[in-house]
């Protein structure tokens, strides 16, 4: 992969424009607030209505890890494979 190094830029968010340090930290604080706000939203255990909500509720009750990227990351994969054989 190739790509421009961020450190070469004067302004990481908008290439080519100079931004005062104070404004950068203000942007950072805003970004942190957005991420923190999203995480706070997750802590309210939001569930959509209907079947969609049942799926999320079920994942929560069962402690289902819906984030695994690859089959070897699933703890119960050996049991599933065994069942399929």
């Amino acid at each position, binding site marked *: 992969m*190739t790509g421009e190094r*961020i450190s070469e830029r004067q302004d990481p968010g908008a290439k080519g424009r100079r931004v005062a340090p104070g404004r950068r930290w203000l*942007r950072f604080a805003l970004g942190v607030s957005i991420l923190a706000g999203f995480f706070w939203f997750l802590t309210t255990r939001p569930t959509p209505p*209907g079947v969609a909500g049942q799926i999320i509720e*079920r*994942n929560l009750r069962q*402690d289902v890890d819906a984030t695994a*990227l690859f089959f*070897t*990351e699933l703890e119960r994969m050996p049991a599933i494979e065994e069942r399929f054989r």
Partner: protein
Amino acid sequence: MTDEEARNPLVASEDWWTVWFGLTILLVATVLGALVLAGAISAKSVPKIGRWASNPLDVFYRSSARDAELADDATLEQVAAAINDATSAATASVEPTDGGVRLRIATTRDGAGETISVGTLLAQRDNAFEFSAEQPDPAGLGARAYVSRAYPSADFVIGGGRVTVTAQRTAGIVLPLVVTVVLILLLTAAGVHVMGGDAKKYAVAFVAVFVLAVLSYTLANYPVSRAYGIGYAAWALALGLLISNTIGTPEWLMAGVRTEMYIKTGLVLLGAEILFAKILSIGVPGLLVAWVVTPVVLIFMWLFGTRILKMVSKPLVMIIAAATSVCGVSAAIAVAAATRAKKDELTLGVGMTLIFTVLMMIFMPMFIDAVGIDDVIGGAWMGGTIDSTGAVVAAGAFLGPRAESVAAVVKMIQNILIGFVGFFVALFWITSVERQPDAPRPGLIEIWVRFPKFIVGFVAASVLFSFVFSPLFALLFGGNGVSLVESTVIRPVTNPLRGWFFCLAFVSIGLESNFVELAKQMEGGKPMLLYIIGQSFNLVLTLLMAYVAFVLLFPNAV
């Protein structure tokens, strides 16, 4: 010729170094695994960030989940016996209560804060077997004990499926985590030094990037985040983007931002997880769904993106096509490395995949449930179309154990394709995409020189573990070689290490990506259109193939 060019590429190129890093880790892990099986040392494992049960510090403890598998006609008494057989973290008993009996599952641990959580997956859906927690912890995600609702007697038939008991906070991981950081650092810093980099600056920056990776895993292991499928890749990208697009990635931190090195090393480790014996053991119907549809969708999306949409960025077309047709994020990063894509292209491809995966995890089971599609066909359909494995299994489990099994196995077979896709895409790139219109076809030597070497490491790892180490372990220790390798080498050591390398890579990608460049990659919404058209084609073709494979050709496969 510059000094760099004059040096032997085996020690000068980062591409080769990722092969050495990966193979060194795999060989050391294999020797450790063999020593464990021989009884010479106790089992060792690389720490994974744990579940977040009641507060963020829980992630610095291990947890352990055990499944009790239930026969189709399991009674309440047999469920209790199955749980007692499956785990020592809890005891299950049938107790008298008002109006009959109830099943009680209690932790066997007495330490403060040590709790269990209990989940069920039954053929009759969850409402057939309701639990409530006794003395739950403040977050309500673990408890000292769980009790079921009242049933008429201990002989009451619950039905088939499984009960999962998770023991929370079983052991601390801080010290093993520090050891892991130091070992990864020593290994990679040596390579950085030989490649001509400043190992000291790299070491300082690496630790900072690793801290961001730990934070990403911590956020991803919050139960609601896990339930929605918002994993470490999403949080790592978000944290990296937050820094790079606000205060800017500091110069000192850039020394540890080595995206290619982390991705390629992770991919070499991933090669060990692709064991060919698995393909043969799980049957033809899954192969039909996963392996017929995948290349067709990949080629369709490539042609659609390059010829119909005429997208400028060919690597981006291939990243989106591979993520959609193969296995989401893992395929995207493999193809991005093989096509030398820009960070912004990978960020965009991965971001789209992560968002659509969550949507499909929710809406596909809804649709299947509403329309009344058979759970086996539904499972195969979701396994072949939802991008990430975790979301596939979560969606499948909602429909029941059969759908979960079929979905997981179809996805697993699709996962195995990642090596073939990476190899052929790299070859296609050298011989076709990067070739000038009037240039002759490159010869074998030129192909070899330009071929990404990490793919050689990936294939070598897969071949070694499939055809050398698995049979060798079976010969030396008896039993199933694949299972032995998986249980002593892959699951405890190489898989978590691969996770750390990928997480470091996603933090690095975020630290190098920039919203302005990302906006340019959007090309008026063409990547989104490519994803939607390609995924729609994938949905239709996979449903058709699932019907052909599991109804017409192999109706008794499951």
